[in-house]
């Protein structure tokens, strides 16, 4: 190791050869990363709707909220749970818009923050039953039309129930245990929750976010595989 190595021209050139592409790549990567974060915000809002349902389940013995059977809509039953809220801008007088709810502080540097809906309820469908295929989904739509999807398990024709059984199960926490107890599955498989879509975004520009009952989200093409088949989405509408 010499005391102070000379900086040669070729070292400078080599450094530039490495650093310039690095800086360009870093810049592109950062922009792509920010775009991905922005893109994920919409999915997060839809995920928030599913989280509301799980929050409801904690105070209702594990049962997810019922669907709007009176209005025959794939949405939460009216007054079952509040609309999804997220924290909004700092609360200032006079109010620039109607605040439905306000979180009083101190919260960080804020005295109060209004709560704003995280997702427009009309922008997504809530599927309060465990359906994993188009046949099961269409059986649920049929039950909804007949006004029997009222928050209880529904007996349907064999093969059209949850996972090919004869019962459409309402969504609930640890449903996999019930499915195993009723011999719908051979044993308790928690991963089965990853197959039940619970909140489906209304498709836009050929894609939609889908949140499953294990609270993982996927951005899927429309029309595409269940639950974003054309027939099922049209029926939900």
């Amino acid at each position, binding site marked *: *190791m010499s*005391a*102070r*190595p000379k900086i040669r021209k070729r070292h400078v050139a080599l450094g530039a050869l*490495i650093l310039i592409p*690095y800086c360009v*790549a*870093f810049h*592109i*990567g*950062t922009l*792509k*990363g920010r*775009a*991905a*974060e922005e*893109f*994920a*915000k919409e*999915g*997060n809002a839809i*995920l928030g709707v599913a989280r509301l349902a799980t929050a409801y389940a904690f105070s209702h013995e594990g049962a997810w909220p019922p669907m709007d059977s009176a209005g025959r809509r794939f949405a939460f039953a009216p007054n079952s749970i509040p609309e999804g809220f997220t924290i909004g801008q700092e609360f200032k007088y006079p109010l620039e818009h109607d605040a439905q709810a306000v979180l009083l502080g101190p*919260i*960080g540097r804020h005295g109060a923050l209004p709560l704003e809906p995280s997702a427009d309820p009309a922008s997504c469908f809530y599927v309060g039953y465990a359906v994993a295929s188009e046949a099961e989904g269409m059986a649920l739509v049929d039950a909804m039309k007949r006004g029997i999807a009222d928050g209880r398990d529904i007996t349907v024709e064999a093969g059209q129930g949850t996972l090919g059984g004869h019962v459409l199960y309402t969504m609930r926490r640890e449903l996999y245990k019930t499915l195993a107890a009723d011999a719908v599955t051979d044993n308790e498989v928690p991963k089965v929750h990853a197959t039940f879509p619970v909140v489906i975004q209304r498709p836009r520009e050929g894609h939609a976010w889908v949140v499953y009952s294990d609270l*993982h*989200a*996927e*951005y899927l093409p429309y029309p595409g595989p269940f639950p974003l088949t054309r027939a099922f989405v049209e029926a939900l509408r």
Partner: protein
Amino acid sequence: MEHSEGTGVLHERYDWLDQARGLVVLLLIVSMPTAEFSGDVLTGDPTLGPPMLNHGYDYFDAYPPIITFIDIGQALFMLVMGFVGYTAFTSRLKKRGPRAAFWYGFRRVSVLYALASIDSLFLPLLEKGRCEWDNFLYKGTFSMIAFGAMASFVCTVLVPNADKRIRIGVLLMLVHSLLYAFPLFDRHTWADNLLNLPHFPFGLLGLTAVAIAGGCYGQWHVMDPENPIAGFQKRIVPISSAAFVGAYCMDWMQPAQHHDVNASLQLQALYMGGFMLMIFFAFGRVGFRFPLLSSLGKNLLLMFAVGGLGTSIYVSLLPKSLLLESPFLAMTLAGIVPIAVLSYAAVWLDRRGIMVRA
């Protein structure tokens, strides 16, 4: 694992280095009660302890994260491990041959992985009924330290010149920063992995880069055996200063993150570690020393493993309501007792010349 292998003295023991190591352990011990009593700023659960001596994510786990001294601690520990590991490894290589050196390296990595197996396999099996294999292999603190130590040894053998070896660390840092910038892999608390991105051992890669740099610092320190200041003057302080500027710039573009040990955090660890070593070295030159830190530093791994585990169990038993009633009790029971007990143990071991190490 006692300090009794062989008969000759392998290398000079630096008291100022023991003190620097002791400070790192002390910060770890202090971070246990502050983490336990972090409270919750959103729900109004009161906070106890100095926030600067706690992980920032315990208060706000989001992006960009709050970074404190404690958040740099793990990387700082890695840097110091690399520093001392270089001296221990190369002194054996020179005086006892490759077999002794490689046996030392193997032993050190094995002991760290053994600790990782207790931390990530045995204890979770008792508590949760399952082993945390990902923590054992690449995510846990001990496994990351083990891997970093191994990488540092291997790089020392492959590229003996520190001036060239540092390029490996820099290259790893650049690769890390690029992989971290692109939305290719899941990052800690990034949108809850909504995009289902695959996991990547960012923390492991980041700490490995720091460990390699630590090994280079260790070599630069002895670059002129006749003049111990030379290493600091010609390499450690200039490179730490450059890392300071680099960390400042990088923090604008890619804010430091504790869990993923991204480029900003690696650079912060480099300059803080370099300056810390310089400060303790300078203190030593003017005849000023902290005997307690020296004792703590001599049994670094023991204090880190046993002290850390013992302190975390102790603070979990403290009733928070009692501490909230009296600030004096909080300071004494949570702030002073763990330090006092471990310091006593460290001094007791030191006075008997016992150094437990891998």
